[in-house]
């Protein structure tokens, strides 16, 4: 990515990005443009460069921030009415790390309210348009971030991925999108959706940019007890494809069973890549299946082996996901009551009414569906049949990935069953919208990383993407191996 130096000023980079953001205003990408703040910060960096002072690895690099990351610059709304008026006094750890390296946020991007959705149509601010076809959806929930990178407004954008919210919009807009291993990047200061599956990640134009961002953002944070000790910059730094060393067998549950060719004396040219038989059927778009076949041929020509996998439990991942996640959503979103911050309904004589009115007016229909489903699966009489059952299914899914990664180094699958669909096509049919996530949610339930890799276009010019999956803590290897798919 282009970084400010003596020849190119940060102010130039930031002003160019802001001009592009305005040029593409009708795509509805941004919920806030940080004009004043971004230019001020750029000038500070330019002053440092002029004086010969040390600047960060992302000096003057303009980026877009998904509007569910807290920072004092602009309102953090999560594209929800109920958070309007909320300017955060705190800064998310991921944002602080990026900004400490000199990255400059030029705007906050649109999402499905509270990241509930797969199209960015459930936003209080209206939908974001697809970068390649303005009649189609951006994907979601991180639709604004994906389009901001695809239209080359910014060098990178942040995202959150609870069930596919980075990978699917990346695929719909032809960019790289990484959902890291669960716990790799701190969730502190990011609006919580489902705490046991939420992951912070990025959209970039190249694997190398992704690697740089991961090296900056990952690591343990005392403010998020689910963060893992930094493995991205330590253990795995030794592990390059084609070399004998790599993941310590003690690292993770998944790795204990791994006979990965990366960790065991194989060459990069000898990686084993799994494809999932159950995903090769008519419910998946023919051009996506064709793209997958072509990439498999490409990998074979480079000396890699393709292995067919049977993963029968994955069929149940979406059901388990739409039980576990709404349960966590219902709990996490109970905090929005209109008392301490954000929107408060005006016409309430007593406190109980204030809660009800604020929540009824402040949430989008999809927020309400998920909160109610969550309260249903957690309520007495249904807990065992739904929530407990789903938590057990989650164990089976984790075991199925462990077994798969004892046979292969990576798995390559479609990201979603189809390329970007038309605006309005699925927004009134919740189950049809949920089926968008059918191939992405199992990774979140298992905590394994997944990287969307661009894979050409349809005959009509829509981007296609494939999902490269690896065992827990294999994020760096995924990014490295993505280059083999070019």
């Amino acid at each position, binding site marked *: 990515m282009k970084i400010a130096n003596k020849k190119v000023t940060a102010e130039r980079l930031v002003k160019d990005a802001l001009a592009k953001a305005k040029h593409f205003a009708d795509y509805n990408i941004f919920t806030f443009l940080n004009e004043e703040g971004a230019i001020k910060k750029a000038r500070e960096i330019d002053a440092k460069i002029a004086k010969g002072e040390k600047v960060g690895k992302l000096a003057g690099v303009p980026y877009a921030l998904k509007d569910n990351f807290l920072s004092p610059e602009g309102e953090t709304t999560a594209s929800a009415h109920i958070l309007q008026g909320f300017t955060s006094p705190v800064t998310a750890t991921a944002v602080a790390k990026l900004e400490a390296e000199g990255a400059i946020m030029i705007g906050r991007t649109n999402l499905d309210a509270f990241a509930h959705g797969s199209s960015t149509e459930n936003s209080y601010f209206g939908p974001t348009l697809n970068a390649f076809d303005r009649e189609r959806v951006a994907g979601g929930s991180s639709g604004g971030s994906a389009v901001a990178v695809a239209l080359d407004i910014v060098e990178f954008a942040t995202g959150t991925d609870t069930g596919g919210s980075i990978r699917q919009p990346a695929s719909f807009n032809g960019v790289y999108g990484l959902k890291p291993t669960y716990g790799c990047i701190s969730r502190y200061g990011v609006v919580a959706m489902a705490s046991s599956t939420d992951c912070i990640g990025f959209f970039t134009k190249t694997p190398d940019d992704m690697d740089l961002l991961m090296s900056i953002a990952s690591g343990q944070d005392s403010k998020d007890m689910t963060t893992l000790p930094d493995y991205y910059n330590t253990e795995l730094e030794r592990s390059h494809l084609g070399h004998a060393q790599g993941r310590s067998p003690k690292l993770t549950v998944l790795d204990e069973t791994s006979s990965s060719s990366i960790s065991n004396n194989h060459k990069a040219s000898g990686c084993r890549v799994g494809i999932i038989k159950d995903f090769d059927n008519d419910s998946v778009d023919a051009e996506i299946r064709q793209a997958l076949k072509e990439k498999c041929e490409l990998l074979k020509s480079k000396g890699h082996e393709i292995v067919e996998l049977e993963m029968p439990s994955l069929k149940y991942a979406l059901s388990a996901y739409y039980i576990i996640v709404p349960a966590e959503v219902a709990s996490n979103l109970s905090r929005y009551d209109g008392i301490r911050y954000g929107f408060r309904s005006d016409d309430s004589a007593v406190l109980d009414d204030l809660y009800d009115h604020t929540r009824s007016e402040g949430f989008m229909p999809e927020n309400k569906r998920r909160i109610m489903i969550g309260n249903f699966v957690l309520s007495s009489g249904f807990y065992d049949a739904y929530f407990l059952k*789903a938590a057990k*299914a989650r164990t089976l899914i984790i075991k199925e990935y462990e077994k798969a990664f004892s046979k292969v180094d990576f798995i390559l699958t479609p990201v979603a069953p189809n390329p970007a669909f038309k605006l309005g096509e699925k927004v009134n049919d919740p189950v049809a919208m949920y089926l968008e996530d059918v191939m992405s949610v199992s990774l979140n339930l298992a905590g394994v990383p997944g990287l969307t890799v661009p894979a050409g276009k349809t005959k009509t010019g829509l981007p296609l993407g494939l999902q490269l999956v690896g065992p827990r803590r294999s994020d760096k290897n995924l990014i490295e191996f993505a280059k083999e798919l070019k």
Partner: protein
Amino acid sequence: MDIKREDILHLAELSEFTLSDAEIDDLGEDLKGIIKYISQLDELNTDQVEPTYQVFEMDNVWREDKILPQEAEREMLLELSKEDQDHQIKVPKVL
């Protein structure tokens, strides 16, 4: 399973929503469809399977019981609420 109007009203109460009649009908239909879909899990045999709630084991994190400086000060937090008075957040009467 059948979702009745009273079930929707009960869930709305648990969720702290006041729903219009149209919303009750629409959400009733939506929830029926979603519950039918997620009920596919019934097919899966989970006998002898332990549940998973977190993908990594979590250890409690301890620190010394000392007051540390906070990013957000009291006044900043109070300013976020719609109404405050005497360093307290003001709300309508409880009863």
